[in-house]
């Protein structure tokens, strides 16, 4: 698989044919920061000033590089595949290696970031539980009611949403057994066959 770069994108990346490897490295760092924390206009300005080049050019270069990295992650390109994709650009060998190295070092991180964008559903994060015995209430004294309080931490768009639920021992056992079934299903012949055949 290859990365297909359109003309405008190539034009933006051409900036890297004019710089030193050290500068390319710095741009890789900035691009990664961009992917993690969003863009920062101040950084562009500083870099543009230092290099004595146009603010637009710097911005396009960072965004172009960022796009290369994120698209490569999206396609899960191998090191070789990325190298081949980049060879269409007239880059210095050292700069090319630098970009590829950044990609290899941060693939896992970037892919997990991309997969979290995936669905708008709540994502499981952690579970805490507590075992209580209710011994009295306003309306009923002298009781022995076992209760299990479950605090589920669910994530949505990186924000944690705690959900507090309760259950009784019978339902807890039922819940555990049912979810265990789900877990063993992954080892079943059917699931394994699907995973083997659909790539």
């Amino acid at each position, binding site marked *: 698989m290859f990365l297909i770069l359109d003309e405008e994108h190539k034009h933006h990346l051409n900036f890297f044919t004019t710089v030193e490897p050290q500068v390319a490295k710095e741009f890789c760092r900035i691009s990664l920061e961009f992917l993690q924390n969003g863009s920062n206009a101040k950084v562009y300005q500083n870099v543009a000033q230092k290099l004595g080049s146009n603010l637009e050019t710097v911005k396009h270069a960072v965004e172009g590089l960022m796009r290369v990295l994120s698209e490569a992650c999206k396609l*899960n390109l191998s090191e070789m595949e990325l190298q081949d994709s980049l060879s269409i650009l007239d880059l210095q060998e050292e700069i090319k290696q630098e970009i590829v190295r950044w990609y290899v070092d941060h693939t896992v991180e970037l892919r997990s970031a*991309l997969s979290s964008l995936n669905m708008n559903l709540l*994502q*499981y994060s952690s579970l805490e539980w507590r075992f209580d015995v209710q011994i009295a209430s306003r309306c009923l004294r002298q009781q022995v009611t076992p209760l299990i309080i479950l605090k589920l931490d669910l994530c949505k768009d990186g924000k944690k949403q705690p959900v507090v*639920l309760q259950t009784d*021992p019978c339902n807890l056992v039922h819940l555990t057994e*049912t*979810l265990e079934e789900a*877990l063993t299903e992954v080892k079943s012949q059917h699931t394994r066959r699907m*995973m083997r055949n659909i790539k």
Partner: protein
Amino acid sequence: MQVSKEVLEGISLLGDVTVFQDDVFKQLLDLVFEEVFTPLACSKLLSVPVVSPMVLKKAHAAVVTFAFDAAKWNADNLSITSILEDCKLDSDRISNFLTLYDKNKTKMQSHLSNVGSYRPHIVDVDWTEHYVIKSSNLERISLPSYIISLKTESLGQDGSSNSDSTQFVCTLEQLQDLVGQLKDAVKSLERISQGQ
């Protein structure tokens, strides 16, 4: 168990054979315990033949309060008998009350245990397993993913139960973590129930 003056007065009315004859007493008592399970039984009160509606109302309210209070404190027959004796009920009427009370005690207590504020109670769970191949943001994912839906029930203001569900997705590792935690909970529950 403490009984208020109003309740004692109301029950004393029931001890008065000139106000409540035996059959009227039984009819009222049956209605009181029927009420636990059918809220509309109250309307049948009007058909009880009695001298004055005011007296009937007072006696009825007193017996209901007394029966539920006894269930709330899980009162034994001895203490109930002594209170009823103080209100001048004869032994026939007391044993009548006790028979019905014993028969309905568990139901009344489960009724009472539902009054209060509780968190949504998990009653069931559904799951689906998916094999994620690719998404708009990511190609070549090829990982299993699960959607878990916890079915919960909670009691509304009016005592009716509402069903709801909490849905979330998790990866295989997250599901393993979840099941691991739940197994821990089950294990310690077993240890506690065996008194260890």
